[in-house]
């Protein structure tokens, strides 16, 4: 069931206006795949009809649902294993070395979606730090629907299967009915809030590490530049930015310099005094 170009254009305009996300022609399949479940839930089998219905002035909630559906990433636990290994083995020891033990580590999962990245980081830090060190993880997303699930910390069996190591499942989750519930203690180390990356940020603490993975691709260049500049301002002067494996700051924001840390490429603000990168013996 292909959608007409007028309907695609309407959705592309809507998503660009509301979330500054660019849907180029050729992404019709994405629109169809994401909106079909919404159309069905609304009792319609035709996506075109669903989109036309959304255009009526009164149907603001429906338009918001469309924006949410198209800004949500499919997500798995410990997505890109090499990134988490690089974080665990290279970046984390550097952070611990350069920060006093009483200072909690603050990490931002900036496209948190349903929370898998934020909880993956919380699991990793719990394993690595034990009770010796406090940490706080903030997950943000534009979509209220995904944030509700992230906060609930409840995942279906299918979601649990996506890249979550079995030992983590056993340690950090409890089965409830057909789903799995994240451990309350782990949940307490993670908070979630609504945030539109394309608008000014407010109320964020200073972060030691920012995970901004696989989300910049959705924005046009001026918006990407604005986002990276604002992200830089939320980071500690010797803090780190982590992008998706296929992404780079190059060509967008030259104030960042990159460092290879195992399988991980991390970025730091280059304007600040460079941090000593001597490896521990």
């Amino acid at each position: 069931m292909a959608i007409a170009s007028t309907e695609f254009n309407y959705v592309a305009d809507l998503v660009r206006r509301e979330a500054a996300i660019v849907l180029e022609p050729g992404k019709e399949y994405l629109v169809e795949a994401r909106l079909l479940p919404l159309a069905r839930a609304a009792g319609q089998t035709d996506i075109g009809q669903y989109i036309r219905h959304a255009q009526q002035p009164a149907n603001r909630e429906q338009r918001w649902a469309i924006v949410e559906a198209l800004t949500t990433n499919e997500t798995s636990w410990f997505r890109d294993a090499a990134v988490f290994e690089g974080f665990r083995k290279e970046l984390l020891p550097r952070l611990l070395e350069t920060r006093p033990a009483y200072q909690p580590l603050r990490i931002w999962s900036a496209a948190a979606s349903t929370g898998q990245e934020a909880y993956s980081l919380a699991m990793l830090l719990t394993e690595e730090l034990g009770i010796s060190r406090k940490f706080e993880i903030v997950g943000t997303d534009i979509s209220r629907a995904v944030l509700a699930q992230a906060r609930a910390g409840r995942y279906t069996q299918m979601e649990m299967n996506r890249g979550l190591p079995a030992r983590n499942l056993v340690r950090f989750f409890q089965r409830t009915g057909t789903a799995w519930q994240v451990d309350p203690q782990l949940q307490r180390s993670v908070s979630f809030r609504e945030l539109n990356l394309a608008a000014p940020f407010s109320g964020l603490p200073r972060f030691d590490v920012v995970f901004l993975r696989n989300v910049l691709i959705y924005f046009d260049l001026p918006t990407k530049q604005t986002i990276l500049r604002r992200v830089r301002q939320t980071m500690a002067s010797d803090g780190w930015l982590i992008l998706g494996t296929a992404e780079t700051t190059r060509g967008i924001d030259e104030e960042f310099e990159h460092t290879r840390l195992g399988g991980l490429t991390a970025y730091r603000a280059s304007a600040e005094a460079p941090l000593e990168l001597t490896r521990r013996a």
Partner: protein
Amino acid sequence: MTVHAIVIDDSSAMRMILRRIVTKLGFEVDEAVNGRDALDKLNAAEQVPDVALIDWNMPEMNGLEFIQAVRSDPRYSRLTLLMVTTESEQSQIVRALAAGAHEYLIKPFTPDAVAEKLEILGLTAGV
């Protein structure tokens, strides 16, 4: 180097589904219909496979018994063991890991979920 897998499941439909998924990842695939059959195949093989995808509930010898047999035989010390089963209780996962399973995947699963488990096990590059 090609990764060599053995799919151990009494359901031919499930063997076919898993074969399709790991073949797409570039693996070579053998099949066995239960734990006993798999042990026979390992015994006869010139080269031990790299990874076994193991159902739990099977006639003759179940997946847990197979894992215990493989773990007590030094010839198979490098065989990676991935349980793929409908058994979904935490206590069962703990049992399988304690017996020597390296990872655990609950049925039903999608191709991505299989690929991600194999990535955790270091058998594929990133997906």
